[in-house]
């Protein structure tokens, strides 16, 4: 890695002592010698293991649940179903008033994706819990499922989630989050070329080294300590408090040393049910995802579809950009309504375009609920935007890097969501990339600056 101090030297004081120094990490020796304690290193006498009975169907009505055989299995201590969860229907963003509550901790009457948790089994050993889970009999009536976002949005599509009433999230702005800036249709009319293209992604997995999980120990005084690898301590505590209808003062969360998150550990899935198990049995409980659960049960990055329509002039100026983004939330909201909205605030990318129209939809389908991941709401949008930029440049016969200089945002430029640009540095990044990659551009672009003229 090289620090190129010549850029922005006039706005930066390099007079610091500890900041800017490549100090060795104090936790590295522990990590590389196996001495660092992670949540799963906590082991308590009498600790129970929790395993989930999961839906084998994408969409089904639950006719009945029979746990009698499982209860007789040696080592089984407690079996939990929906009726045991004090506030079973929840949604995590209710903490910032983004509702409605739309997800069950344990399925109640219905499952909406293959892998959904239905029954929790607590047993003396992991093996006993696994074997007993296989003995739980659930009678399902399979329902039609919808997997494709476009299909889900059509009239007459199977309804994924009754708590929403339609297969998209209803924002205060309607069926999508909207950004309107300038007159996009006039922009297309006046453009030399109009190009509309569609981009698509698949879900991907965070693939952390350490799978999601927690260990819960009763403190003996009606209080519970939860050792967890959540990415957000109080966010998880507050949601647990709601789900279990327990005052926050009864909950003590300990964490902060995590083997990789990437956004995969912000969903509040394992902690509430493990604490409930500890409360109802009076015993310590651990609930740790297997690698298979981490890959197919825990939320992936959402699949997205992005449609971009651009109006561009022969001289390289983009005069209009219309973006329609679809985020596949799967069966439940989790963080997806936020991610789709974050996308609306990110388009049209780091370019100054006078006419912009953005609609971003959060769509429900019968698949594993997606949620946050590194680059949430932005990564797939950037893929679409930057491939589109390459296509536009080639359409008008211009060098792709020079084309970006022409449109790059600079300090003071008004963004589509009506915030003036501050602290821009796109131009300088491209100038340095031009040098480093030996990708020459015209001298006028190398002389550009992100600073406002005369300021």
């Amino acid at each position, binding site marked *: *890695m*090289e620090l*190129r101090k010549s850029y*922005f030297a006039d706005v*930066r004081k390099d007079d610091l002592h500890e900041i*800017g*120094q*490549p*100090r*060795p990490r*104090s936790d590295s020796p522990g990590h590389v010698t196996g001495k660092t304690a992670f949540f799963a290193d906590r082991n308590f006498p009498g600790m129970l293991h929790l395993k989930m009975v999961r839906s084998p169907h*994408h969409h089904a009505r639950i006719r009945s649940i029979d746990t009698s055989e499982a209860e007789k299995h040696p080592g089984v201590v407690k079996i939990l179903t929906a009726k045991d969860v004090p506030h079973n229907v929840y949604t995590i963003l209710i903490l910032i008033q983004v509702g409605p509550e739309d997800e069950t901790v344990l399925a109640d009457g219905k499952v909406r994706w293959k892998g959904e948790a239905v029954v929790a089994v607590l047993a003396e050993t992991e093996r006993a819990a696994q074997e007993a889970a296989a003995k739980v009999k659930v009678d399902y009536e399979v329902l039609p499922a919808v*997997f494709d976002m476009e299909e889900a949005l059509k009239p007459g599509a199977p309804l994924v989630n009754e708590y929403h009433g339609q297969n998209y999230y209803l924002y205060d*702005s*309607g069926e999508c989050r*909207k950004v*309107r800036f300038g007159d996009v249709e006039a922009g297309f009319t006046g453009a030399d070329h109009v190009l509309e293209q569609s981009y698509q992604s*698949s*879900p*991907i*997995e965070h693939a952390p080294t350490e799978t999601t999980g927690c260990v819960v120990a009763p403190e003996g005084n009606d209080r519970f300590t939860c050792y967890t690898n*959540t*990415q*957000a*301590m*109080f*966010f998880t505590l507050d949601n647990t408090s709601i789900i279990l209808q327990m005052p926050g003062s009864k909950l*003590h*969360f300990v*964490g902060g040393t*995590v083997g990789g998150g990437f956004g995969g*550990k*912000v969903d509040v899935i394992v902690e509430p049910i493990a604490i409930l198990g500890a409360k109802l049995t009076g015993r310590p409980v651990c609930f740790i995802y297997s*690698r298979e659960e981490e*890959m*197919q049960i825990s939320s992936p990055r959402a*699949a997205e579809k992005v449609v971009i329509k651009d109006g561009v002039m022969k001289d390289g100026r983009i005069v209009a950009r219309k973006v329609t983004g679809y985020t596949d939330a799967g069966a439940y909201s989790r963080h997806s309504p936020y991610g789709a909205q974050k996308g609306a*605030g990110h388009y049209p*990318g*780091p370019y100054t375009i006078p006419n912009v129209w953005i609609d971003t939809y959060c769509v429900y389908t019968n*698949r594993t609920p997606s949620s*946050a991941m*590194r680059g949430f709401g*932005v990564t797939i949008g*950037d893929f679409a*935007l*930057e*491939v589109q*930029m*390459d296509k536009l440049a080639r359409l008008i016969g211009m060098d*792709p890097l020079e084309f970006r200089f022409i449109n790059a945002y600079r300090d003071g430029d008004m963004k589509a*969501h009506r915030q003036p640009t*501050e*602290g821009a*540095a796109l131009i*300088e*990044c491209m100038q*340095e*990339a031009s040098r480093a990659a030996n*990708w020459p551009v015209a001298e006028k672009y190398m002389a550009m600056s992100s600073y406002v003229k005369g300021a």
Partner: protein
Amino acid sequence: MAIRRGRGVAAINYPTGMNLGGDPTQALVHSTPTGNFMVTLSSVDLGQGMKQIMAQICAETIGVPTDRVVVDTADTDTGPHCMGTFASRGTHRAGNAVIQAAREARQVMLEVAAEELEVNASDLETDGQGNILVKGAPQKSISMFDVALSAHFKRGRSISGRGMFLIPRSYPEKETGAMKPSTCYAHACTVAEVEVDDETGEVTVLTVKNVFEIGRALNPKMVEQQLVGGSWMGISHALYETTEPYYPNRDHGGTDFNQYLMPGPGDLAETEIIVLERPSADGPYGAKGPGEMCANPQIPAVANAVFDAVGVRIDTLPITPERILRALKAQAAN
């Protein structure tokens, strides 16, 4: 049939934080009788090195070496509130809270030292080595150890401080979408060079040259680990990863690292990282959040390089050999 070479470019920006929900983090700082400092937080270190960075920020602000600061974090009985580690917010939000808390603690420390040295607190400075000196008369000094002892046992002072950083919630305007979704923005430009085998559809990423503008590299070695890791993750996202290879079909999802494809060490490109620093107006010592954005520009850069190499557009991720071969076949048929 041949191995074809191509290169592609992408340029991006990335927001720091999550203002669309309200974005608070708090911190407490106090000295122990040994003259060391504790930073107490509830922020989570995901492995990226948050604890180390908070120690360096506290040390810089108080004026002590980093190894005199211990970070105690993520116990909800002791740590003040943090929204969480996500949205590229950890360093930016918690860092600002730590600076505020450390400033308050530093002020008490200087006041105690001033009483011991019988001077005004405003006439004192720190040497960064654990001592407080009288400006212009450095022979007149006191160690932080002695200041801490004085505060605890003689003066009855608590060398401590409280820090709070809150970005108030922004509500998007319904019709226009006017909003303030984040604070500062990091930037990047990536050039990727690939080889594509037009017989097998296989892509080899030869080089990735990344330029990142991240406000301030608070610890350059840790910035490097994050940016290199992110660059690899971007390649992985572009060419390999998916839990549902035939999305929207739900079948064929990988359940372990044998089935879920990711690049191995031999599949990773020669990676170059160049860092620019335009300090942000509201970041701790000018830092922005580079954690998420560093994995983004490689994806379109690789996609554009594949087109440059073989003349087909793969607009669906991941860019698998199967998709490339199908596109080449369709191109030949036309």
